[in-house]
């Protein structure tokens, strides 16, 4: 077997291994990415992480933070329930909005995020 063929075989094996690797708590990671996008005011990433029905609400949430500085405080999320392609994710920590030195915290533990699996991607679909 030539070196070239061995290298290609090794690369293919590595890719297969990668494809078979399960991701750990993907719904929770999606919500964390969503919250980070909100804090960074990254409209593009927020759009990518929202399902179609939630996109307008996500944009509204972003608009509501337009005039303030937003940071995440000790945010950590985990999936509390999964049924088929729908997962419920709860988070601890807070979203801190600062305006002219005044800080207002939004306690994330009071919200439950509904996350939907769409073609392999977990997307935020609502938060109650």
């Amino acid at each position, binding site marked *: 077997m030539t070196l070239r063929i061995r290298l290609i075989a090794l690369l293919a094996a*590595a890719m297969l291994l990668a494809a*078979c690797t399960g991701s750990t708590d993907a719904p929770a990671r999606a919500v964390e990415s969503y919250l980070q996008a909100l804090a960074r005011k990254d409209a*593009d990433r927020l759009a990518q992480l929202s399902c179609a029905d939630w996109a307008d609400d996500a944009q509204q949430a972003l608009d509501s933070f337009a005039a303030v500085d937003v940071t995440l405080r000790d945010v950590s999320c985990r999936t509390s329930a999964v049924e088929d392609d729908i997962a419920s994710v709860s988070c601890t920590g807070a979203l801190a909005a600062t305006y002219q030195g005044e800080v207002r915290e939004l306690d994330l533990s009071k919200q439950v995020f509904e996350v939907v699996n769409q073609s392999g991607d977990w997307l935020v679909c609502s938060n109650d």
Partner: protein
Amino acid sequence: MTLLNILVFCAAAILLGLLRQDRWRHWLILALSVAAIYWMQPLMPIRQLDFWLPTAAILLTLGTWVVLQTGRDDARASIRAALPALALIAALVLGIAALRYLGDACCLTPSPPPPLLPVVIALLLAVIVTGVIFVLPIRGVYKMTLLILLLIALLVVLKTPRLSEAASVWLRTLTQQPTGQAAALDIRWLGISYVFFRLVHALRDRQSGLLPALPLQHFAGYVLFFPTYTAGPIDRAERFLKDASREFTLTWPVLYAGGQRIVLGLFKKFVLADLLAVVALDAIKAAQVESTLWTWLMVYAYACRLYLDFSGLSDIAIGLGRLMGFTIPENFTAPYRKSDLTAFWNSWHITLAMWFRAYYFNAVSRALRASRFKFPMALIIAFSQITTMILIGMWHGNTWNFIIWGAWHGVGLFVHNRWATAMKPRARELDARPRLKAALSLLGVLLTFHYVVLGWVWFALPTPALSLTVLQRLFGLS
């Protein structure tokens, strides 16, 4: 390119330059370039587009290369010889897609790539379509013309706001995202304008019999070359091949020269240009500032900022190329010190002007001169110059402001052409009066600079109405 991109490219360029085996260097340049275009592609609101656009650029490049082989006696042998390069590129694309499955270690692209299956299907479809095009019993020159038209159509869609928005609507339908949020700027395809220039140059030169045989790894390396991918300079394939075929060793003088150029570019772009951005003209400041003096300062700042930003990027690209043994052509040679508009356009974005001259201006003026209708020479020159500059404007964006900017320069070039023709009989007279000549030259520099600066008002602002308001304010007329 971000600062992080540039720093990593510098390190990679130095390591590549140190490689003693030229053969391995070119393979690594190709691999690095493929990875780089995914890394540099910015995030967009449309899901996974940051993976598909670089993939499309690669597939366009590969498809173009196959079309370039049509009509060659050794076409099939060339394609067989290209299999290792094809395999490398396919492996890289699939490898980058597979990063999706690495959890926290993902990704080279700003967002997780699509699942592997659609990527495999896309690559197979591309192979089938390219194969069908290759074997189609149509003359190669027609296939190349069709491909050029397809590339032009693609660019028109991307540069025309309404069409780009419609494309965004279509893509959002595919990704099940709300179409109501579609916008013209959703599709930000990094480097596609420059990919267009390189592919069309190769196709046109092949049609004219000027393009030498290019192995795939060199052609793909030329089109996707990471230092010049995002903002040029626009190199020529034959020139790139010459450098790629030369033996190269990175020595201390070359490292110094390349490094110096990179540092200069970094300083111009990330220090000077970014500082000037605070006061440079833009739509918000244009609407808020009412003072004539401040408007002039904003316009001057914009002119300087644009030059520093763009020439800085060219310096970085040229420096990076130097470290790997490539002599990338110069793009700016003190354009604001030129005493006429023709000289300005021979020194501002030189490679762009040369491209349009070679593939549009010369062809159009030649066709008009050879026409049955005996057009007056002045009309031929006016038409050729004005339409060339309008096309350059539209390349920046298919909006009225860019069209007006292009016409502004086209008319200016024609006026200078007529002036230069009228002054030719008096040239010797002027040579005998050096002081007058120097004074006229200085006046020329000031006039040319301000003509260009006023043109930037159209370039910088989004609407003709706002541009007119600013121009009026500059002359105290508002």
